[in-house]
C-alpha cells in the first residue's frame, strides 16, 4: 500500500487554509439566523462601547474645554485649593504684578471664569458662565465670531455670547446684536455672537473684558480667580511654574496639568464615569453573552458534523482554522458595523448643542477593537474545546 507513516506528507500548506476558509464561510453564511445573531451581538457591543465611551470622553473634555482652548498660555496660576476650573477661589490682584516680575515669565494676564445670574428684558433670570479676559491682550477670548467682532468687548458694558447660549436663551430667534441683559443692576449689551468651546453645563457663555468684570461685581475686594502666563521661549514651563509657586505661594500648573486635574476631578468626584462605565460594561457583557452563546450553539449543533469531519481526516488544526475564521469574520463585520453606526451617530448629532465636541477618537476605535477581540476569543475558546474533544466515534452512534 502507498501509506508509509515515516514519509507522511508535510504539514498542511497554505492552500489547505484557504480551502478551510471557503468551507467556514459557507457554513457560517448558510445558517442565516445564527449568522445575524452573531453579527448583532458584536455590533451591539461595538456600538455601545464606541458611542458611550465617546460621549463620556466628550463630557470629560468639556470640563476642561476652556483650558484646552486657551492655547496662548503655558501656565495657570490660582489658589492652592483649586481642584478644577469651576472652583474659582479669588486671589489678590497684587499677585498679578508679582507673577509678571518672575524670571521666565514673558507675560501674565488676568483671567476670570465664574457664574453669574443675568436678568433678561422680559424679567426672566438665567445663570450664565462669565468669562473675563485681559482688556489689552484679550487672551482667552473666543475669536470665531458669527456676528459682530470679538474685540467689541473692550467697549464698556459690552459682551459677546456664544452661539448655543444665544439659542438657549432666545430659541427660534435669528441671531442679532444689541440684546440687553442685566447683571447686578449693570446693563450689558450683546454686541457679538461667537462659536465657543462646549462646557459641561449648557449655560450660555458671556465674554467680557476683565475691567467689565470688576464693574459688574464692585462690592468684593478680590475677584481675580486665575492668572494665565506665557513662558519665555528660553525657559522650561516646569521651572517657571516652580518659581511662581515659590514666590507667590499660589498653585501654578501647566495648561495640560490643569486640564487633566479638572478632568480627574469630575472623573473621581462625580457619578459620571460610574454611570457610563456601567453602560459600557453591560454592553460588553450582553454583546459577549449573545456572541458566545450563539457561537457555542452554532458549534454544538454542528458537533456531529465536526466529529464526522474528524473521522474522515480533518485535523484539529484544520477545524481550528475553520472555527477561528468564522469568529474572525463575524468579529470584523460586527465591529465594522458597530463603529460605522457610532460614526453615523456622532455625525448625525454634530449640530445638536448637547453633543457639541463629540468625536470618535482613535483610542476608542482601538479600545473597542481590543474588547471585541477578547469577546471573540472567549467565544471560540469554549467552542473550540468542544470541537477538539469531539470524539469521531460519536458519528457511529446513530
Amino acid at each position, binding site marked *: *500500500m502507498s501509506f508509509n507513516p515515516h514519509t507522511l506528507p508535510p504539514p498542511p500548506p497554505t*492552500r489547505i487554509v484557504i480551502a478551510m476558509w471557503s468551507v467556514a464561510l459557507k457554513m457560517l453564511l*448558510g445558517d442565516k439566523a445564527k449568522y445575524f445573531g452573531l453579527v448583532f451581538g458584536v455590533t451591539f457591543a461595538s456600538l455601545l462601547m464606541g458611542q458611550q465611551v465617546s460621549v463620556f470622553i466628550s463630557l470629560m473634555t468639556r470640563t476642561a474645554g476652556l483650558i484646552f482652548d486657551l492655547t496662548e498660555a503655558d501656565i495657570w496660576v490660582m489658589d492652592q485649593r483649586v481642584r478644577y476650573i469651576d472652583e474659582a477661589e479669588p486671589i489678590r490682584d497684587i499677585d498679578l504684578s508679582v507673577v509678571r516680575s518672575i524670571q521666565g515669565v514673558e507675560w501674565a494676564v488676568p483671567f476670570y471664569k465664574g457664574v453669574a445670574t443675568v436678568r433678561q428684558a422680559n424679567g426672566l433670570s438665567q445663570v450664565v458662565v462669565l468669562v473675563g479676559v485681559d482688556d489689552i491682550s484679550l487672551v482667552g477670548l473666543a475669536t470665531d465670531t458669527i456676528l459682530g467682532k470679538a474685540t467689541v468687548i473692550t467697549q464698556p458694558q459690552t459682551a459677546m455670547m456664544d452661539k448655543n447660549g444665544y439659542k438657549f436663551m432666545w430659541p427660534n430667534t435669528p441671531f442679532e446684536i444689541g440684546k440687553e441683559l442685566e447683571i447686578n443692576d449693570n446693563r450689558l449689551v450683546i454686541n457679538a455672537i461667537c462659536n465657543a468651546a462646549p462646557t459641561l453645563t449648557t449655560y450660555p457663555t458671556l465674554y467680557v473684558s476683565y475691567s467689565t468684570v470688576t464693574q459688574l461685581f464692585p462690592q468684593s475686594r478680590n475677584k481675580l480667580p486665575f492668572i494665565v502666563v506665557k513662558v519665555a521661549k528660553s525657559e522650561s514651563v516646569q521651572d517657571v511654574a516652580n518659581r511662581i509657586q515659590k514666590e507667590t505661594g499660589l498653585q501654578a500648573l501647566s495648561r495640560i496639568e490643569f486640564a487633566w486635574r479638572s478632568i480627574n476631578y469630575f472623573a473621581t468626584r462625580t457619578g459620571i464615569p460610574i454611570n457610563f462605565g456601567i453602560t459600557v460594561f453591560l454592553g460588553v457583557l450582553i454583546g459577549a453573552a449573545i456572541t458566545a452563546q450563539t457561537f457555542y450553539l452554532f458549534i454544538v449543533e454542528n458537533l*456531529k*458534523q465536526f466529529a*464526522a469531519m474528524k473521522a*474522515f481526516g*480533518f485535523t484539529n488544526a484544520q477545524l481550528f482554522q475553520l472555527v477561528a475564521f468564522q469568529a474572525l469574520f463575524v468579529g470584523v463585520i460586527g465591529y465594522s458595523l458597530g463603529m460605522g453606526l457610532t460614526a453615523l451617530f456622532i455625525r448625525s448629532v454634530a449640530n445638536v448643542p448637547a453633543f457639541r465636541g463629540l468625536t470618535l477618537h482613535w483610542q476608542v476605535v482601538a479600545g473597542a477593537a481590543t474588547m471585541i477581540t477578547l469577546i471573540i476569543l472567549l467565544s471560540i475558546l469554549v467552542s473550540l474545546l468542544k470541537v477538539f474533544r469531539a470524539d469521531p466515534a460519536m458519528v*457511529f452512534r*446513530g
Partner: protein
Amino acid sequence: MNAIQLTNVSKQYQSGDQSTLALDNVTLTIPMGKLSMLVGPSGCGKTTLISVASGILTPTSGEVVTLGYPLSTLSDTQKVTFRRQHIGFIFQQFNLLSSLTAAENAAMPLVASGVPLHKATQQAITLLNDLGMGAHCHKLPRQLSGGQQQRVAIARSLVHEPDIIICDEPTASLDGKTGHDVMEILRHIANDPKRAVLIVSHDTRVFSFADHLVEMADGQMLTSTSN
C-alpha cells in the same frame, strides 16, 4: 493483502467504577475486493469494531493491521492522515453539513487534503453524476430525500479514492426500496479488487449482498461465512 486484520482484539470501556467489554478477543480478516458485512444485535460490538479497525478507537489489547500496517505504531496525527488517505466513511445519519451543497459535502475529504473547494467540488460532481445525482449536485441536504442524502454520503466516501469503505448501518434510515438501491451501489463498489467494503448492519434485508458475513454477539465473533 487483506484490507483489515484483527488479531485477539479486545476493547474495554471504563466509566467510573464500571467497565464494559465491547470487544472480547476478536480475530477477524476483512479481504480486499469483497463486501464484508458485520451483523448482530444492537450493543454487540459492531460499531466498536469498525472504530477500532479504522483507527478512531485504540484497542485495549490485540493487534489491528489495516492495509498491511499495524495501527498501534501510528501516532494520533498519523492515524488521521491514514484515514484521510485510505478510508471512506458512510454513516447511518449521513452527517452532511447543512449549509453546503451536495457536491460540496461530497468534496469534503478532498478539502481535508488541501484541494481547493471549487476543484474538489468539480471532482465530486463527476462522482455524483455516476451515482445518478447529477440533477441534485447544487441542492442543500434539506432539499434531498434520505436516499439522495445517502448517495451524497457514498460519493463523499469515494471522492478521495480510498482503499477501504466503512459503512455504519447505511440503510437504517432508508425505506426498503431506497435501501436496496444504496446496497446495489455499495455492491458495485466492492467489485473493485483493490477496494474493500465493510458494512455494519442489523438490517436482515441486506444480508444477501454480502460476500463475507460476520456474525457478532456480546463482543465476540460467532460465525464468519463467505458466499
